[in-house]
């Protein structure tokens, strides 16, 4: 009996059903969670999916961090539960203080939806345990605000503590140090801009995302 991956829905989220479909395609079970609820129920991992929570008004994630369910997500993360923020979900986790840094507008000031090559920088995270350091994965990006930034001190810590989880092979958006994904100190909370749920089926162009979501499913099995 495998565990359940909860997928948080805010008004304006749009990748929630894609996450559920890919989790289930990989043999897991996904369950939608409503942002206005106060507890997570019995889930074993949480995905904060992509989209435009609260219309990205003010700035991406700035309003979503105040949703009642985020209190429960924060508590779950503090207790070591695996939490993954994808795209808008990454933005929300940085706004909520669960991950360091921030996502600003792409260097080219345009929205970018395109394939991208991502290099795995550590296999020690809730999203990369099935991968090996140095693996290169083809996973699409789809964002306007994906340009990761943080202060020098934070960047040094991220590098020293091996917390840069993923890097772009060919940086598309100007992210500092080519960063595509990072994790927290406990390594259980991971945020990334690329969409692994869009790369779990060869019919759609790539199944390289399976190794990432599969790693998460290993933790809840």
């Amino acid at each position, binding site marked *: 009996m495998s565990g359940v991956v909860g997928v948080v829905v805010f*008004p*304006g989220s*749009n*990748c929630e*059903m*894609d996450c559920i*479909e*890919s989790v289930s395609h990989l043999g897991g079970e996904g369950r939608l969670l409503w942002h*206005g609820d106060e507890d997570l129920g019995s889930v074993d991992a949480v995905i904060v999916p992509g*989209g*435009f929570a*609260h*219309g*990205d*008004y003010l700035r991406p994630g700035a309003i979503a961090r105040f949703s009642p369910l985020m209190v429960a997500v924060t508590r779950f993360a503090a207790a070591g539960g695996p939490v993954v923020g994808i795209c808008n979900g990454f933005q929300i986790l940085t706004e909520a203080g669960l991950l360091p840094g921030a996502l600003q507008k792409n260097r080219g000031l*345009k*929205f*970018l*939806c*395109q394939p991208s090559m991502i290099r795995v920088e550590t296999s020690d995270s809730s999203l990369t345990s099935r991968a090996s350091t140095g693996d290169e994965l083809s996973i*699409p990006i*789809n964002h*306007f605000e994906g340009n990761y930034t943080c202060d020098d001190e934070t960047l040094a810590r991220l590098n020293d503590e091996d917390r840069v989880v993923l890097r772009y092979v060919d940086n598309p958006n100007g992210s500092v140090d080519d960063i595509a994904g990072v994790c927290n100190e406990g390594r259980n909370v991971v945020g990334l801009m690329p*969409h692994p*749920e*869009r790369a779990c*089926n*060869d*019919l*759609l*162009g790539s199944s390289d995302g399976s190794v990432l979501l599969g790693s998460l499913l290993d933790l809840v099995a």
Partner: protein
Amino acid sequence: MSQPLHRALGLTDDEAGRINEILDREANPLELAMYSVMWSEHCSYKSSRIHLGRLPTEAPWVLVGPGENAGVVDVGDGIAAAIRIESHNHPSAIEPYQGAATGVGGILRDIFTMGARPIALMDPLRFGPLDDPRSRWIAEGVVSGVSGYGNAVGVPTVGGEVVFDETYRGNPLVNVLCLGVLPTERLVLAQASGVGNLAVLLGSSTGRDGIGGVSVLASAGFSEADDGDKRPSVQVGDPYEEKRLIEACLQLLDEGLVVGIQDLGGAGLTCATSETASRGGVGMDVDVSAVPRREPGMEPHEVMTSESQERMLAIVEPEGLERVLDICNRWEVNAAVIGRVTEGGSLRIMDGFGGEVLAEVPAASLDDEAPLYDRPREAPLLPPGPSADDLDAPTDPGVDLLELLADPSWVYSQYDHQLFLNTVIGPGDDAAVLRLKHPTTGFDTGRGLALTTDGNHRWCAVDPRQGTALVVAESVLNLACVGARPLAVVNCLNFGNPEHPEVMWQLSEAVDGMSGACEAFGVPVIGGNVSLYNESAGTDIAPTPVIGLLGLVDRLDTRPPGARLAEGNHLVLLGPDEVGLGGSLWGAAHGAPGGEMPFVDTAMHTRVTTLVRNLVLDGLVAGVHDLSAGGLGVALAEMATRSGVGVHVARVGDHRALFGEGPSRVLVSVDPERLTEVLHRATGAEVDACRLGLATGDRVIVKDLIDLSLAEITSTFIGRLPEALGSGTTNRQPDSR
């Protein structure tokens, strides 16, 4: 202010007289305002309706044909597909970002009004030349608007077109197509029924934006000075409101809480209330004071004709109201009871239920009794320009080829084209292919939907009838290239001023061309949109009927190959040899848009499309690309640059064979082991197959005509749009004095 009110509202003296006859009294100002928007060209199709009746609209799989918010076809496994195309040309010329954004919003509402979840958008876009700063301003704004709204509302944009041409300098074309899927049994129609039922207005509050958009903007051409004055007629879009509205409406439909539902688009509340009542054979009392407003002091005529975006009108039974309000509350969607279904056929606008009656008209008269014009038609005396057949052969065809290349990826990389995990083939190929999954159970049918949009103003300027037939043929061929068979057409007829007899002749000819081709290929037309008055400073655009074609891929276990080559592939040209330079991209680029154009042999075309579809489905070709604008030369260059492999080709006689355009022609790349089988199949299908050469190396070589490095072709292809659009824009009108 001496002119009578009806003329200020865009009604003719005859039309005003007709309104008074219907009412059997003098219409009051509110009633005149309501008729003026409903009888506008945009809403009533008064100039085009008599011609549209000639289109074939029936087939066993058609569930809903033209006239509803969207056409619907049965695609099997309990799934129906809803599709519609619309134009937002004039708003986009005035305010590109919002014009395009609200175009996307409007078409989405047409689709979920039918009970369908929107799953894909396509945007055929046409702008003035790239060297015109204002055209670049419009292009950038429109693409940003589609991106900003479409991405945020959460519906992928899986394809479209982008064309730059002098004819669209003053009047761009921004068309948008939406495809949705629904469980077949959930099909809902936009009608009110059940006396005593309630009309609930959902979504945004009503403001002064977009008042008279259909009559002021969409039903008149542009002059030089007044564009800025029209800006308040353009609406402003809010994709976040629309996203919540979609989710709320689909949940209302899932729970069976609505009797009928209608979006508020052109002509706003007037259109939504009168059409739902008229279709249901009932009347409606509307309490105008109950409509939530954005600002105080709005007059009833402003509330009734406002085109504020992101609004829907749901007809619900009184006992279901509480649950409806609960669902709306969950999605943070405003809901207000603003009307009641009544007996008889009167639409009454009141200041409070039981209060003063501000307007009372027969609901059906706003729609059914709109005027119908058979405007004068006359073939133009002159061809569109010099004949391309008279041009000298180019001294260096390689230079000419480079000039014709433009990669549209600058446009579509700004669109989310992958959401919902359906996109097997996205933008940039001959047609998009989407997995066909059941919209509520998620059941994967193992089949696919294919979608393409096509238009060609160059062909249609030379001969609108034959040009439109060629466009339909190209659409069918595009679908064949991804292994799909055609199911249904929607069209967007973009033409100039219908008061010009040449324009009405073009429209009538185009309808006949489309009708003939659709009948020959067995494809019904299930919906459409007519956009007239596309003119600027008295000059009409070239006739531009745009076709949206939906098809089915019967087996989708592997990805169709797309326009690809691999080292060592044989290049084979399937289809007839006949091409013409008349209406060709090459001719137009050299100032000669006229000349002779080949005709579509529909029997031959069907043999070619059937052959190509089967070759793709059976996995016999490594790559496939139809020959369209720019002919064989452009097709070779596109396949080479997308694959990073050069070509070495012979048997191309001259520039005419290289750049000439004709129907039913497809370039396939074939693995050597499969060449015999492919040629054998072509013979069996009675289709000519010509071996042109090989995919190899890093140069594009056409013997005696072209010898270019792949690197040069690729950098020109990829660089054209970003370089041109990176060179600055302005919204200043050119100084015409």
